[in-house]
């Protein structure tokens, strides 16, 4: 028989510490749906998504019941639409509407992949897709968009940064009546992973199989509770505690992924080892850092504790699953984390510190509300800064900032649900326009002589 304490520990994790599977995401390739006639292409896209994912929600719910593990989201990621729409030579917005309709038909809450990969330049269809993002996000509810503007191997496409600065602003402007939510469904990446199950940045890379299941685990509450049991332990002991906890969390993700892939008859892709917070009390990454010994997240020592946390989560998780991928690390979205919201409101956490934190964890400047009058060029420069961190450190970084149109520092945007609410944060008000308007490509960094 299984050890009684182990059973009770698992139940406590689920019942009291918010342990859950954050998402089961089905990746679907749309390469076989390409057609010069956009109506035919959209019909093929709808047919393929509704065929592949017809049982996704049901299987997810069955597993939830049988294993007693909450599975919060069932989602879909697809091939970057810029690749599919390139042959059509017209606005790709009908694809966004088709994705939205297909997502609604199969019952998933978000579908990712209204995306373009332009790290080295724009190919046919890329620029048209990027320019259509604000409209696509405003006229759909479930579609998420992402654009990769840089990588370690190619450098950073500064023209794309400039364009994305405008697109992020416009996405917010077009959705003022929905609290600028359009911008919350748009991520700008450097080194974007092709198998990421987490929204809004999920897309199904072209090197992936036709259809696949990826799982994203969560559990900041469990890690915090585990750390809380050792108030006097050294930091190396704390790292060990986190590793062991991450192992258990990941094993659960591995189990759910294996069962889901068997039942759906689809290969199992990866487990994304992430600590994904929610605004719920007891489900915060910032509170783990505070439990380790910071008075408030954002103070001196935050980067060091976060680096240790992120590394320990990966070490524990890697041992637990042979299929690791996606973003894998601790997420620090401001509006989605009760501790981060508190820290930002109290003035302890500022955007510069957040930027430093993103150098040691996944993913980037995430769910940060910025003043409504922020110029597009400043947003572009934020994107360039963040991409530079990713490019030089050979890691994924991303920017998901929400220009809070009509609001200023001190105001708050409330999105509700898992997206939470975020205080508008102060930015540096000096201009970066001349730099951004130079355009061109920041060359790829040297991989030796590292200092």
């Amino acid at each position, binding site marked *: *028989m*299984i*050890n*009684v304490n*182990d*059973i*009770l*520990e*698992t*139940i406590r994790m689920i*019942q009291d510490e918010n342990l859950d599977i954050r998402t089961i995401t089905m990746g679907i390739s749309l390469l076989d749906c390409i057609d010069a006639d956009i109506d035919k292409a959209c019909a093929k896209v709808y047919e393929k998504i509704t065929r592949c994912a017809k049982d996704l929600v049901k299987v997810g719910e069955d597993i939830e*019941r*049988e*294993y*007693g*593990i909450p599975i919060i989201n069932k989602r879909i990621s697809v091939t970057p639409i810029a690749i599919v729409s390139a042959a059509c030579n017209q606005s790709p917005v009908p694809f966004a509407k088709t994705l939205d309709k297909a997502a609604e038909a199969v019952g998933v809450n978000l579908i990712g992949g209204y995306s373009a990969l332009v790290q080295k330049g724009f190919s046919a269809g890329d620029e048209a897709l990027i320019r259509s993002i604000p409209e696509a996000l405003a006229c759909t509810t479930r579609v998420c968009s992402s654009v990769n503007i840089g990588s370690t191997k190619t450098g950073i496409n500064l023209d794309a940064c400039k364009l994305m600065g405008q697109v992020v602003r416009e996405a917010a402007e077009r959705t003022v009546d929905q609290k600028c939510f359009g911008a919350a469904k748009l991520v700008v990446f450097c080194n974007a992973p092709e198998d990421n199950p987490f929204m809004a940045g999920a897309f199904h890379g072209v090197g992936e199989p036709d259809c696949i299941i990826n799982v994203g685990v969560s559990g900041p509450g469990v890690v915090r509770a585990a750390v809380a049991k050792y108030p006097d332990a050294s930091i190396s002991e704390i790292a060990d505690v986190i590793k062991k906890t991450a192992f*258990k969390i990941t*094993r*659960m993700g*591995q*189990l759910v992924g294996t069962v889901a892939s068997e039942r759906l008859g689809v290969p199992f892709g990866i487990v994304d080892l992430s600590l994904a917070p929610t605004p719920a009390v007891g489900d915060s990454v910032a509170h783990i850092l505070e439990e380790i010994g910071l008075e408030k997240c954002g103070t001196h020592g935050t980067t060091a504790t976060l680096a240790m946390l992120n590394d320990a989560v990966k070490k524990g998780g890697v*041992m637990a699953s042979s299929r690791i991928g996606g973003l894998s690390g601790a997420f620090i979205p401001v509006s989605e984390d009760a501790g981060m919201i508190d820290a930002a409101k109290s003035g302890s956490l500022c955007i510069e510190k957040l930027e430093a934190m993103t150098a040691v964890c996944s993913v980037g400047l995430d769910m940060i509300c910025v003043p409504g009058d922020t110029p597009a060029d400043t947003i572009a420069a934020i994107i360039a800064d963040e991409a530079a961190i990713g490019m030089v450190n050979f890691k994924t970084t991303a920017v998901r900032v929400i220009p809070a149109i009509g609001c200023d520092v001190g105001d708050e945007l409330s999105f509700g649900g898992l997206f939470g609410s975020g205080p508008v944060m102060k930015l540096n008000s000096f201009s970066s326009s001349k730099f951004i308007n130079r355009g061109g490509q920041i060359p790829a960094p040297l991989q030796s002589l590292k200092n």
Partner: protein
Amino acid sequence: MRAVITVIGKDTVGILAKVSAICAEYNANIIDVTQTVMQDLFAMIMLAQIDKMKTDFTAFSQEMEALGKEQNLSIRVMHEDLFQSMHKI
């Protein structure tokens, strides 16, 4: 398939009997039972073979949950594999 049935709550008379009555009703074979009392909290764990059950898993687990609510206890039915995979290398 084997299920782990956990009953946690305040100790009262007849909990074991009530849970096992439902198992018998649905033809779930109880293989092992263990119970501990931590302070005044009662924790009982049952391992049951549920391959030959008369009903599906969902109905069985809902019946147990309903009993839990009625008795003011937390009763959960979960697949054994969850615990095996989380706590064993």
